[in-house]
């Protein structure tokens, strides 16, 4: 079943056209890794999927919902899509538990006790339950990112967008975050990740999408893509990073 359906997506920042017609279908439960050079439009594509950037042309449909930031409330936009950021973006003045409980209580109007049960559940899933009362500043980067994942999960998204979620981490902290994502993938969560972790893309993704100059240049199962790249651009990209 197609969960995310992107057709002919265009996005410009002033004169600069960043997305030049992107078509992408993602099935429910699929894990899609988007790779490519910086400036290829991969983060912009991801940010269009929850309308942090409003697209100029084309259509985005997620779980049957047509996305249009101008015509929707943020609550509508967040109904199906969760996002995890490179820089965690936890709310510094709220404890781990409050970070996770905030959106369910404020946006969804969930009862406080129900929200707390939900928060404990998702924090347990990412292995951060024992830090329920800690403040973000007391956590390592990897721990903060796991809390950020739990915070997104608490809104029960159908698809989770991950924008270079390990890029700001010290190398020894990358593993704990990737393990959480891998476990989510195994559970059947639909994931769309912009990533530089090629090994992770290779091992966990169902499909790898290579973006180049605002378009999807090549895509396919990870093994095929990494071992038998067809286009010269992808060959160059792979040889540059390995």
């Amino acid at each position: 079943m197609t969960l995310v359906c992107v057709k002919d997506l265009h996005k410009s920042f002033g004169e600069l056209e960043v997305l030049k017609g992107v078509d992408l279908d993602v099935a429910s439960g699929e894990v899609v890794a988007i790779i490519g050079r910086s400036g290829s439009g991969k983060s912009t594509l991801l940010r269009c999927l929850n309308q942090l950037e409003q697209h100029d042309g084309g259509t985005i449909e997620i779980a049957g919902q047509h996305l249009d930031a101008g015509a929707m409330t943020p609550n509508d936009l967040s109904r199906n899509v969760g996002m995890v950021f490179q820089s965690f973006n936890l709310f510094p003045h709220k404890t781990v538990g409050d970070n996770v409980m905030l959106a369910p209580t404020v946006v969804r109007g969930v009862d406080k006790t129900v929200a707390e049960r939900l928060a404990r559940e998702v924090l347990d899933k990412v292995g951060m339950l024992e830090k329920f009362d800690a403040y973000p500043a007391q956590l390592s980067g990897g721990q903060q990112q796991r809390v950020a994942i739990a915070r997104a999960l608490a809104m029960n998204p159908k698809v989770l967008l991950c924008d270079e979620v390990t890029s700001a981490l010290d190398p020894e902290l990358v593993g704990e975050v990737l393990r959480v994502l891998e476990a989510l993938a195994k559970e059947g969560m639909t994931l769309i990740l912009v990533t530089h972790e090629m090994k992770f893309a290779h091992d966990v993704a169902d499909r790898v999408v290579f973006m180049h100059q605002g378009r999807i240049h090549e895509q396919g199962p990870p093994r095929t893509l990494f071992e038998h790249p067809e286009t010269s651009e992808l060959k160059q990209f792979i040889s540059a990073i390995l």
Partner: protein
Amino acid sequence: MGISLDFMALSPYLGELLRGLFTTVVLTMVTTLAGLMLAIVVAYLRLNAAAWVGMALGGYVELIRNTPFIVQLFFIFFGLPALGIRIDAITAAFLAMTLNLAAYSAEILRAGIESTARGQLEAARALGMSSLQSYRHVVLIPAFSRIYPALISQCIIVMLGSAVVSQISVYDLTYAANFIQSRNFRSFEAYLLVTLIYLLLAIGMRQTFLLAGRRLFAYRQGEHA
């Protein structure tokens, strides 16, 4: 010529002093709370409401910040009755002080709000929060923590500035001092005592704010910054 201090000359007027002190303290507490709440609203609307609302509020802020407080007070108490708006002295004092503190605080707070990291707003939005929800739950407390020292000083300035409300016959601490020295001619003692009381009020106010800040911004104690 030597000065002989005679503080005992003030003792018959203890009641007047307490009455003045009470007015100053209550007026300060009420206007501080009302002014800060108004500032929170004004700062939000200036950044988020329709352009004409933002401009109108910008006009209010600049008008207050670029005119003397005593003129604002006189305008409200002596000027408005010409328009048929008649208010008593204490209400006029409350209005003038609240509007004054709100304008300065809104401007101070705006700096704190504008320095919010973009990622914070994006995270709030990605979680489905409206701009008002994100202001209230995500932006406001960290913004306050960044501008807190400036805000404390502003509140104290308004408390000290409240001395001029004695000019429209509000029975505050300064009014009490004027009254006492007009009766016993001990102006040096009267004003010295009142000066000390204002000083203690300012110190007490700052300490109260700092204590509240330690609770409100407890999350910062773990920061590595």
